């Protein structure tokens, strides 16, 4: 907890300092960065929470799922395809597709010993180009003017200014917390990540455990993609994923890989993303400061947590 606060303060201080060096007022910069609207913050926090869970579950099981981005896209594509069968079908399809896309990596690991760090990254690029092909080709809008799809026929219900995805995302966080700390599946999963040889000795089928963890992890990312489509964008387009998969790493590490902590951490990064967009509009400061802060947060978390397990 202390580490997380230190990491956040350090990152904000560094950004204020950098902005000051380039002639921006640090006070204005921070007030814009942290003063984004609550509704937009929540909208941004929803996908971040789910991709944060993606990373938290995978890292807890000791697998390197860097493929949140690709699983996010796979989930959105499946949700788009299944939307004609209704909202529930679309959401289920997104979870299944995310899990399936992640399972390619765990299959290759099991079958060919291919390191999942690399295969998940490559699957990101494949998914991005597959999406590019879809929105320029078979799924392009009927008027064929822009590289995007038509709007989906179903949408998540609105709850005031935000959509019902917020309930699903928080429910997913609680479910993951329950899974990790209150079920034997979660105990085996954590044991596998903590010490695979000891887990094996204690009778855990490590390879199957990794496979299931990867599928759960990918399912979260897929759901994030589905919710983003059905709640926010309603269409698919080339830059749909917008880095949510990679941001999830910062979200999960700030939460120290705890599913409930991820809720708080996602809210923080959601606020940052909102503020960074506002900075770019009103002060012409690059919105990549949000990426910068994610990086500094990860480094600070490593710095103060190197004796604890990441």
């Amino acid at each position: 907890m202390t580490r997380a606060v230190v990491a956040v303060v350090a990152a904000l201080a560094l950004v204020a300092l950098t902005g000051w060096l380039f002639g921006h007022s640090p006070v204005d910069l921070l007030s814009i960065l942290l003063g984004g609207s609550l509704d937009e913050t929540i909208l941004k926090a929803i996908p971040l929470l789910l991709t944060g869970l993606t990373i938290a579950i995978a890292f807890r099981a000791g697998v390197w799922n860097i493929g949140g981005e690709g699983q996010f896209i796979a989930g959105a594509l499946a949700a788009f395809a299944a939307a004609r069968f209704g909202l529930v079908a679309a959401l289920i399809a997104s979870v299944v597709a995310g899990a399936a896309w992640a399972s390619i990596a765990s299959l290759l690991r099991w079958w060919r010993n291919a390191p999942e760090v690399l295969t998940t990254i490559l699957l990101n690029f494949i998914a991005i180009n597959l999406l590019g092909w879809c929105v320029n080709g078979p799924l392009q809008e009927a008027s064929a003017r822009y590289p995007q799809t038509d709007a989906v026929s179903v949408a998540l219900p609105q709850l005031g200014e935000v959509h019902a995805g917020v309930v699903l995302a928080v429910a997913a966080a609680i479910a993951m917390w329950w899974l990790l700390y209150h079920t034997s599946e979660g105990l085996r999963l954590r044991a596998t990540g903590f010490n695979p040889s000891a887990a094996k000795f204690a009778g855990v089928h490590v390879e199957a455990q990794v496979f299931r963890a990867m599928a759960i992890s990918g399912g979260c990312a897929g759901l994030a993609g589905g919710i983003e489509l059905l709640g926010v964008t309603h269409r698919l387009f080339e830059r749909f994923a917008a880095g949510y998969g990679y941001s999830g790493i910062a979200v999960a590490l700030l939460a120290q890989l705890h599913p409930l902590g991820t809720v708080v951490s996602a809210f923080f990064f959601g606020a940052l993303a909102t503020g960074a967009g506002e900075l770019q509009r009103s002060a012409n400061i690059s919105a990549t400061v949000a990426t910068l802060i994610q990086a500094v947060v990860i480094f600070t978390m490593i710095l103060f947590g190197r004796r604890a397990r990441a």
Partner: protein
Amino acid sequence: MILLAITAATPLLLAVLGETIVQRSGIINLGIEAMMLTAAMTAVLAAQGSHSAAIGFLGGIAGAAIAGALFGLFAIELHADQIVTGVAANLLALGVTGFVYREMEQSAVFVRAVPRLQVDVIVPFAWIVAPIALALLLWRTMFGLRLRACGENPEAVERVRRHRWIALGIESALTGIAGAHLALMLSSGFAENMVAGRGFIALSIVIFGRWKFKGAILGTALFGIAAAAQYALQAMNRGIEFHLLLALPYVATLLILCGIAGRVRSPESLGKRA
């Protein structure tokens, strides 16, 4: 066309050579992307400041060295997880270069044409000189033997960290030249996220080449020719299938990783926390 392919794949090869050395010393550096991106920016800044492409290349090396030093500080000195450190380094480089570029976008540095080398000496350096020199260093010297031992069985070597820092230094020099070549010779300046995944492809080619320099050259050449063929096809095509073609190199790398190239044996202690 082959020559064009070879030229276009030159930064990739330099990154592959650097990563091969580093992985031989037992470290997996996912931050190549960060090193090349930082180098691309510092190379442009240095070249514009001095009106000299040669100084630009030195600036690129300095930029990559800064990114490399940050990675080394965490991964070697603080024993942090190498994969998380690499990802964080990439995010940092993306954030910093994006920020600086936006701040200075309108200034002459990023608008004026960049100075270029008259003759592209980097291509023969990358494809002939560097691989021979590195192969001799790794396989024919006492230092090379110790370096490889750091990757196989670090307990057997004195001063493991020093060897790993030197390997990282070599990688910084090579990725620095790679980033500078990308910005000054292959493009006309800096663009946001211009490395565009080359670092990750380099990582895969290292494995494809089975941590050997001959394999590195062969893998990069194959990849470069495939990429060039894809552009040629793209030019002939109506344009829709272009995105599927763009995915091909990644599918190919994925297949390579699955052992099309036969059994893969990595250095024994690769990626383990010291």
